[in-house]
């Protein structure tokens, strides 16, 4: 087996072209899944026997909360790969993740607050799950602030990568916070090893939203990645062709 495919993954012109070709596929698949998931979640799924229609917030809260963790993990892993193997494209991926992750972390916090208000009787509590998720938002914002404070892209890549990698410790803390400490927040009912505790009519729309949001992240990342690559490959010849038209 040859390693050419691996080397191509580190090659900016190859990635730039691949990202451009893949974006519409990701975008339309995500749109179809999210529209289907919305219909299933808002119309087809029956009201919860305890929470009534309030539980429908789950269909936007759980996928955005999942995104907040998944995007951060992607960012930290790419940053680590960039640090260790000095791959420019890897740093470009990490830099592209942050604004997407930050915005959906914000959505997860607000939708959680709206859901919690009627179920727990409060918009906010300094609870382990809620607090660690808020710290995640600050990690994203700190990462972005740090990057924008450093003019030299290569230095910004390295310094911000260290922050991203150190901050990844917060990801398992968020995930397991509801098991480790007494938390207002319920324990996972889908991401668990035993059978999910939900009927299919409720679960299928949720899984569609999970998948839809994940693929949407892919589409957004591909677009941002192209911009990051263009900014890093300032003098490369292939750019002339890429930006013609």
């Amino acid at each position, binding site marked *: 087996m040859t390693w050419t495919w691996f080397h191509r993954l580190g090659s900016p012109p190859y990635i730039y072209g691949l990202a451009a070709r893949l974006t519409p596929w990701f975008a339309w698949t995500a749109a179809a899944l999210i529209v289907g998931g919305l219909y299933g979640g808002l119309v087809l799924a029956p009201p919860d026997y305890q929470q009534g229609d309030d539980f429908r917030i789950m269909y936007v809260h759980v996928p955005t909360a999942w995104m907040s963790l998944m995007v951060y993990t992607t960012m930290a892993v790419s940053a680590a790969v960039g640090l260790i193997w000095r791959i420019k494209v890897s740093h470009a991926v990490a830099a592209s993740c942050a604004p997407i992750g930050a915005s959906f972390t*914000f959505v997860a916090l607000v*939708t959680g607050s709206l859901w919690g208000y009627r179920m727990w009787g409060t918009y906010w509590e300094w609870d382990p799950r809620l607090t660690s998720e808020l710290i995640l938002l600050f990690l994203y914002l700190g990462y972005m602030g740090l990057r924008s404070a450093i003019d030299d892209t290569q230095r910004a890549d390295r310094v911000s990568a260290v922050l991203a990698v150190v901050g990844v410790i917060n990801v398992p803390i968020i995930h397991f916070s509801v098991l480790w400490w007494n938390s207002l927040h319920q324990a996972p009912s889908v991401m668990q090893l035993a059978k999910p505790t939900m009927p299919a009519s409720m679960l299928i729309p949720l899984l569609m939203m999970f998948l839809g949001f994940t693929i949407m992240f892919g589409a957004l990342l591909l677009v941002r990645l192209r911009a990051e690559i263009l900014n890093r490959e300032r003098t490369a010849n292939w750019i002339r062709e890429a930006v013609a038209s």
Partner: protein
Amino acid sequence: MNEFLYMGGYAAYVWPSYGLTLVVIVLNIVWARRLLARSREEARRRLAMQGEET
């Protein structure tokens, strides 16, 4: 239809949640596209200036 909008009395919590999610999705699409358009424009300008120098 009214019953659907009423959301069993939880309309004030359900709809803002969905509304915010939708707004942030749209903003993400707009931001990403604008970022790419700007980077392309910048690269084009840079290359034009290089062309003049040589």
